[in-house]
């Protein structure tokens, strides 16, 4: 046999040998690359159409910024993904959103599990009226992920992850409302991360924060990828440029344009997009 071929074969490991190694490098490699997919999604409240025919995929481990003028349907779209709109009276949807290939509205879908996998951070920090530690582990307790002493470990781990641990490790049993706004938002982020979501929805997470806290949160968001997939609604175009890989621009209920952030900001294809990113429409 050709010695060169033979040497090559020695170097080529069989698939079964390589699997554990690849698995360790990327636990998600056998899962679909597109975590979320919106398939001609239309949303309406009663007679009022909010979004029409949105088609877009969200790749695993990326950050997508959702921009557009007030009332364009950004928040509604975001809140649909973890089905926060279901209970709003008159809410109707056409088309579909799928999480890893299965519709989020599928009858077999467990709503509570969906929300565990698709977490959310809100515009205003909303810690619960309980101690700081209980706040971090609130979701963990609800989903019975850990109990007893393990909860302390979870709390420390998540507070470290968001960089709050050193500042508040002696105040774990105090009220969260004595923390600054930025710290409260980080606490809420720790709480959302504690249940181990795959996707995190962020609804203008820094709009009520000061510039320094905003910077801290933005840096954290970058660290959360590629383990998580992030979708962030923002009014702050600078923030969209700084943190996101992809950007989607919504205007009057339609997805006008989407693509890599740099391309969308520097070479927008649509006139509306250009007008918005250059500040000619607001």
């Amino acid at each position: 046999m050709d010695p060169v071929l033979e040497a090559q074969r020695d170097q080529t490991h069989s698939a079964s040998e390589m699997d554990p190694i690849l698995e360790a490098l990327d636990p998600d490699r056998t899962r679909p690359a597109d975590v979320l997919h919106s398939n001609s999604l239309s949303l309406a409240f009663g007679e009022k159409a909010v979004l029409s025919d949105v088609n877009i995929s969200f790749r695993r481990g990326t950050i997508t910024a959702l921009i557009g003028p007030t009332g364009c349907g950004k928040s509604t779209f975001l809140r649909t993904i973890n089905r926060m709109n279901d209970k709003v009276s008159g809410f109707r949807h056409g088309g579909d959103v799928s999480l890893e290939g299965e519709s989020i509205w599928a009858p077999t879908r467990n709503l509570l599990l969906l929300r565990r996998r698709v977490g959310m951070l809100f515009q205003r920090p909303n810690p619960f009226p309980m101690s700081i530690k209980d706040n971090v582990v609130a979701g963990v307790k609800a989903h019975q992920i850990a109990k007893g002493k393990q909860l302390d470990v979870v709390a420390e781990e998540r507070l470290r992850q968001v960089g709050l641990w050193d500042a508040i490790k002696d105040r774990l049993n105090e009220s969260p409302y004595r923390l600054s706004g930025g710290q409260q938002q980080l606490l809420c982020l720790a709480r959302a991360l504690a249940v181990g979501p795959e996707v995190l929805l962020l609804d203008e997470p820094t709009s009520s924060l000061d510039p320094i806290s905003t910077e801290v949160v933005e840096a954290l968001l970058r660290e959360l990828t590629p383990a998580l997939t992030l979708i962030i609604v923002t009014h702050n175009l600078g923030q969209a440029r700084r943190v996101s890989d992809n950007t989607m621009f919504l205007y009057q209920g339609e997805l006008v344009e989407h693509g890599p952030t740099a391309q969308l900001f520097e070479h927008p294809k649509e006139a509306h997009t250009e007008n918005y990113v250059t500040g000619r429409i607001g």
Partner: protein
Amino acid sequence: MVVGGARVASDGYPSTHRRRIADRVFRAFTLLALLVIVAPVIWVIAGIVARAVPHWRWSVLTTNTVGAGGGLDNAILGSLAIMLGVLIVAGIFGVLGGVYLAELAGFNRNGKQRGAVLRSATEVLAGVPSIALGLVGYLALVVEFHWGFSVLAAVIVLSVIVIPYIARGTEVALRQVPTNYREGAEALGMSTGYSLRKVVVRSAIPGIATSLLIALAISVGETAPMLYTAGWFTGTPKASLFHQPIGYLTYPVWTFWDYPSDQAHYLAFDAALILLVMVLVLLVIARLVVARSQRFAENRRN
């Protein structure tokens, strides 16, 4: 100086004279309203204390009533037992009813809230005079069910009287819980019931505790329905729900004043004083509960 029909001060701006007078009058009226509210409270407390304290005997607390004399031990224990019963029965149904009204009553197909019937029912119930409920309780429970004058009949009728207050108080307290908390809990994947129990109710506790306190104060102070259902008993309350009348503090206040003996009159005011102290203790307990539940509250005052 008058310019264009309006009075103008010397510096050229319109006169503020009228506005300043209106302000003073408004302040005076609010102060008057405060006095009208506070004065009767002080009057009642002072009157009862002034008449009960001069001939106070501690044995009132430890001995049972004999005829229209003796002590009030039986009535105190009876009132406490009835309050406990009301707290359990009315507390459970009132709070759960309030939770349903505020949180779980969804909308029907016509877009109307399903709790409307329940809400109207509680409002009607709150408007029924307590003596009418007492009469119904007497005819239904005491006579028709053959329970006789009994603790259970009294507790049920009192509960029916106070449940509307508790349900309404609970509903209002829950409606004031910020949407933020509910959304946060929902987004974490908590079920409605779980988030209610662990997050929402927690911040509604002051309102719920206050409504329970009012309910207990009402039930300890009711007289007419008690005459119909609990009867009156001068012995120590017995651990029996049926066929066993029980003593309570409003009975001596209502009855003994009519008796032609000083002993009976003293006992009437002693009972009134004890009732007053009980209500004040309830107030303090409620404050403590509120303070403890609000350790982590957003609007806590330090």
